[in-house]
């Protein structure tokens, strides 16, 4: 039965292998040079004081030379889309095509029970989808290691230095791709079992998976663990986003999310805003004295001093960097449990398909 599922997955497997090899070749062709740029940047073993400066200039160099920014973006898109693709083209037809063309009657009249037939098909297809997605993710992690290290050292540089909590970074690194791949595959199979036609099953799979991938970072992931709160003072190094409000001479601000939170490097900043000396949030600042000269960029020493002298600080809600792996495990676990639930439903559905 394992051999039959592999035979039936032959076309998909060849496609996946070709795509995987092409991806590996692309990364292997550009990766070593990226690593040599990193080696030449002197970031390895840099003094903490100069690190973030050097990291930023390294990232800017990478950004302006060669295809790295494009490869980086392309890889992220590919890895983020792979679970959906395997769910659509492997999962959805798995049962739908058999039911649509009537070949289930051929399969189910061999000397193999229906439950075993489904179990093997689900296992082989699901593991293959997970393996392909995770292989892409690991290849990319190897390629992007210099960029991640530079970002970790506090470097900033457009899209190249994503925080590890950035939704696009979170879903393409670590173990979450395993969960998404398993879930999208199981979702495709279930949609196929319910709808019994391949194309509509693919459409439904895509719609549900996309909706979930949008809902997850917006509403679920931030609430998996209770957030931490802190209040920090404003210094001339703090990067603020300033917003003018309706009434004149008032404004409010948030901490720029790519700015690092003092004492919490790599933290996932959920929200931030002005607070008074006691740490209570204030809705607007009336800074007749501190009217910001430049409305958008950094506050500058004058603004920082002015705000600080009036007792205004920044209240920040965040997830510390140490929550990265617990969040990865939890989210992957959620998706794997959902996948198993869908698989279980498929068994029930198939035994009742009669």
């Amino acid at each position, binding site marked *: 039965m394992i051999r*039959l599922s592999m*035979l039936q997955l032959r076309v998909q497997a060849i496609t996946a292998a070709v795509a995987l090899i092409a991806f590996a070749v692309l990364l292997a062709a550009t990766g070593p040079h990226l690593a040599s740029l990193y080696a030449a940047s002197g970031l390895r073993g840099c003094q903490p004081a100069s690190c973030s400066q050097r990291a930023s200039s390294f990232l800017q160099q990478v950004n302006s030379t060669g295809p790295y920014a494009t490869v980086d973006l392309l890889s992220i898109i590919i890895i983020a889309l792979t679970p959906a693709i395997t769910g659509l083209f492997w999962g959805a037809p798995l049962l739908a095509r058999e039911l649509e063309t*009537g070949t289930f009657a051929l399969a*189910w009249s061999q*000397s193999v*029970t229906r439950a*075993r037939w489904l179990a093997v098909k689900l296992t082989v297809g699901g593991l293959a989808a997970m393996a392909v997605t995770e292989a892409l993710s690991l290849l990319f992690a190897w390629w992007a290691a210099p960029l991640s290290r530079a970002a970790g050292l506090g470097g900033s540089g457009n899209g190249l230095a994503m925080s590890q909590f950035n939704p696009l970074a979170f879903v393409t690194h670590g173990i979450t791709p395993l969960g998404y791949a398993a879930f999208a595959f199981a979702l495709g199979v279930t949609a196929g079992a319910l709808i019994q036609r391949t194309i509509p099953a693919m459409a439904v799979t895509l719609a549900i998976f996309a909706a979930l991938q949008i809902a997850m970072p917006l509403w679920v992931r931030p609430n998996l663990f209770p957030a931490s709160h802190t209040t920090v003072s404003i210094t001339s190094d703090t990067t603020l986003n300033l917003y003018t409000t309706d009434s004149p001479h008032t404004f409010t601000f948030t901490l720029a999310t790519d700015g690092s939170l003092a004492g919490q490097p790599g933290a996932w900043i959920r929200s931030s805003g002005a607070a008074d000396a006691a740490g209570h949030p204030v809705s607007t600042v009336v800074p007749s004295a501190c009217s910001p000269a430049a409305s958008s960029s950094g506050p500058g020493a004058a603004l920082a001093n002015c705000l600080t002298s009036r007792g205004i600080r920044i209240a920040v809600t965040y997830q510390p960097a140490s929550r990265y792996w617990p969040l990865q495990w939890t989210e992957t676990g959620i998706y794997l449990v959902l996948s198993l639930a869908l698989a279980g439903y498929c068994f029930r559905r198939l035994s009742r398909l009669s």
Partner: protein
Amino acid sequence: MNAVIAASGLGKAYRRTWALRDCTLAIPEGHVVGLVGPNGAGKTTLLRLATGMLTPTRGTVSVLGQRPAAGPAQLARVGFVAQDTPIYSRMTVADHLRLGAWLNPGWDDHLARQRISQLALNPKQRAGSLSGGQRAQLALTLALAKRPGLLILDEPVASLDPLARREFLQGLMEAVAGQGLSVLLSSHLVADLERVCDYLVVLVASRVRVAGEVSDLLASHHRLSGPRRDPGTLPAGQEIITESHTDKQSNLLVRTDGPVLDPAWAVKPVSLEDLVLAYMSRARDDGQAKPQQLKVAS
């Protein structure tokens, strides 16, 4: 009597519609059984219940003494060629034989290869590009090479041209002679079955109307024609299946185990087709009478 298929009060409903209802049946082993009935009589439903593709809503069915599809061992003993002979159109002929070998412990590879070469099928050809007849032959090869005790075929020749039809049935008969297996095949055309079957089951509106060995059925049914008379005056033991009367003449199709002795009758044998048609039209007349009875009852 060892029954290859024994059904009792068997019924299958889809939502509120009964596709098969109150079906009671026992088919002895060692026969090539024709299951005949009009479209929508429940033939496909009965065969799918017998292969375990469907589970009954009511009643029970056992095949070779076990619940259909009860486990790998039971599945191994029943071969099934479903309606429209489904095959994997993207896989080659050789892939299909491989599939059969992988999934069936009792697979007879020699038999499978022999049949494929006899049929002059190219093993490397995609099954999707086979003709209807070749496709049916491939499906039959898969079902035969697993060496089943019972082979079930659902309208296997319905979509084939006359030549392919004859070749398919010929191949089937050769295999039956060689393997000594029981066969149950359905058709809505008696002509297809006449050549191959030695046992007949007529199913109309989900009820078994008559079942028995073909030779017995032909010996016990007679077409009588003679001067008009009241059917009630027939001797006991002569059951009227159909009757038609003109002013002067009566034409009857009767079932009786003994000889027809009344000299007033001209007695003619019946063909299998006449016999099946007679039971079908009787069932239809019964069916028309039924709704009225139901109305009274409700």
